C-alpha cells in the first residue's frame, strides 16, 4: 500500500501541498487530479524520495520513504517504475539501451538475456521494431510507450508512477497510452499513481480518484463519489 499520512511537501520554505491523507491499496490505480501548479507532481516526488516530507509520513509497502538513508533509497527506488511527463528517455542511448538500462545497472545478467527481456518489453508496448533507434526519432506517443517499457524493466516493480502520461498527445494516442496503462495494471497487478489534469483519461485508467485544490486534497473516492460530489471546484472540473 502507498500511504500519505498528514503529509506536507514543498521546496525550501514554500509549502506546495499540505496535510495530504490518501492511500492506494494493493493492485489499484489512483489518479491524482487538479489544476496546473496544484502540486500533483510534487506528490510523486515524495513517493520517489526526491522530496522529503516537511511533516507527516509517506509509506510504501511498509517503508517510510523519508527515513531511508542514501543507500537504502537507491535500493527502494529499484522497486518503483516511473514514467515521466515527456518520457525522459536518455537521448545518448538507443531505445533498447534505454529499456535495458536498469538491467545493465542492477543485474549481472548476460547481454543476450537482457536483450531478450528488452525485446519482450518492447513487444508488450508494440515497439519492438524501434529497438535500435534513438529517442529523437520517436513521436511523443512512442516515447511514452518506451518510457513505460523502461519503467517495467525490473522483473517485479511493485509501484508504477505516471506523471501526466498523456499531456501533449492527440486524443487517439492518449487513448492508446491509457489502454496500455490499464494493460500494465491488469497483467502485473502493480499499485499505480497517475497524475493528470485530463478527466477523460483519468476515468479511463483509474479505480480511485483524488482531487487537489489550494494545496489540499478536497475529495477522494471512486468515480461515483466524484460524479456525485457537490464541491464547486469538482463540479467545475467535471463540466469542462
Amino acid at each position, binding site marked *: 500500500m502507498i500511504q500519505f499520512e498528514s503529509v506536507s511537501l514543498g521546496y525550501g520554505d514554500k509549502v506546495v501541498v499540505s496535510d495530504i491523507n490518501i492511500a492506494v491499496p494493493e493492485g489499484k490505480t489512483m489518479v491524482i487530479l487538479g489544476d496546473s501548479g496544484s502540486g500533483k507532481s510534487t506528490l510523486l516526488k515524495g513517493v*520517489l524520495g526526491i522530496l522529503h516530507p516537511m511533516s507527516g509520513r509517506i509509506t510504501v509497502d511498509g517503508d517510510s520513504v523519508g527515513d531511508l538513508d542514501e543507500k537504502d533509497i537507491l535500493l527502494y527506488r529499484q522497486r518503483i517504475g516511473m514514467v515521466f511527463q515527456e518520457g525522459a*528517455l536518455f537521448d545518448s542511448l538507443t531505445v533498447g539501451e534505454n529499456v535495458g538500462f536498469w538491467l545493465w545497472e542492477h543485474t549481472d545478467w548476460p547481454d543476450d538475456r537482457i536483450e531478450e527481456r528488452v525485446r519482450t518489453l518492447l513487444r508488450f508496448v508494440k515497439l519492438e521494431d524501434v529497438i535500435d533507434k534513438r529517442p529523437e526519432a520517436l513521436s511523443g506517443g512512442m516515447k511514452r510507450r518506451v518510457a513505460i517499457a523502461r519503467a517495467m524493466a525490473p522483473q517485479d516493480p511493485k509501484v508504477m508512477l505516471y506523471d501526466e502520461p498523456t499531456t501533449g498527445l492527440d486524443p487517439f494516442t492518449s487513448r492508446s497510452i491509457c489502454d496500455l496503462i490499464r494493460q500494465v495494471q491488469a497483467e502485473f497487478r502493480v499499485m499505480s499513481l497517475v497524475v493528470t489534469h485530463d478527466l477523460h483519461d483519468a476515468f479511463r485508467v483509474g479505480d480511485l480518484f483524488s482531487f487537489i485544490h489550494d494545496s489540499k486534497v478536497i475529495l477522494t473516492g471512486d468515480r461515483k463519489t466524484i460524479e456525485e460530489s457537490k464541491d464547486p471546484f469538482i463540479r467545475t472540473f467535471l463540466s469542462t
Partner: protein
Amino acid sequence: MKLFLEKMADIVETVGDFALMVFKGFRYMLTHFRTGDTLIQMDRIGVGSIPIVFLASIFAGLDMALQFEVVMAPYGARALLGKVVTTSIIRDMGPVLASLVMLARVTAGISSELGMMNATQQIDALRVMGVDPLDRLVAPRIFAGIVMMPILSISGDFLALLAGMGISTAIGHVPAPLFWSGVRDALTAQNLTNAFLKPVFFGFILTSIGCFYGIRSSGGAYGVGRSVTKAVVAAAIWILVANFLLSKLLINIWGLS
C-alpha cells in the same frame, strides 16, 4: 546587511555543494569505477579536442618564437631561443592555452549537456532508477579531464616547440641542433613538473565546474544558457587563479631556477 549575509550564505552553500560533489565523485572513482563510461568521456573530452588544441599550440609556438626572436636578436641572444621558448611554453603558455581552448569545448559542452538532461528530467530518471548521477555522469567526466588534459597539453607543447623551431630556423637562422640543445637545457625537473601538474589541475577544473553548473541547472532553455555562461566564466577565472597559485607553489618548492 541582510542582503550581504544572504549572499555570503549562498556562497558558503555553493562551495559546500561543490565540495560534496567532488568528494562523492572521487569516492565513486575509487569504489565504483565505470570503465565504459569513462572511456567514452576520454574520447569525447580528449580525442575530440585534439584538432583545436594542436592548432592553437602550433600557432602559439610560431608566435612565441617570432616575438622572442624580435626581442632577442638585437642582443645577439638568438642561440637562447630554444631555451626561452621551451621554458615559456611548458611552464605556462602550453597548459593555460590548452585549457582555455578546451574551456569552450569541454566546460560549455558538459554544462549544456547535463543542463539539458536536467531540464528534460533525464537526471531525475537516473535517480529513480537507483543510479546516482554523480556516479554515472560526474565521476567519469572528471576522471577523463584529469587524465586527458596532461596528455593533450604535453602533446600540444611538443607541437608548439616544433613550430617554434621552424620559425627560429626560417627567420632567426638558428640551426635546428642549437635550438634543440636549448630545448634540452630547458627540460628541467621544475619545468617538467609544471608541464605535467598544471594540466592535471586544469582538467579537474574544466570538468568539475562544467558538471557542477550543469547538474544544478534549472529553468529550461534559459536556465541551461545561464548555467553554461556561469560555468565558462567560473572555469576561466579558476584556471588563471590556479595557474598563479601553482606557479608560486612550485617556485617555492623548487626555487627560482
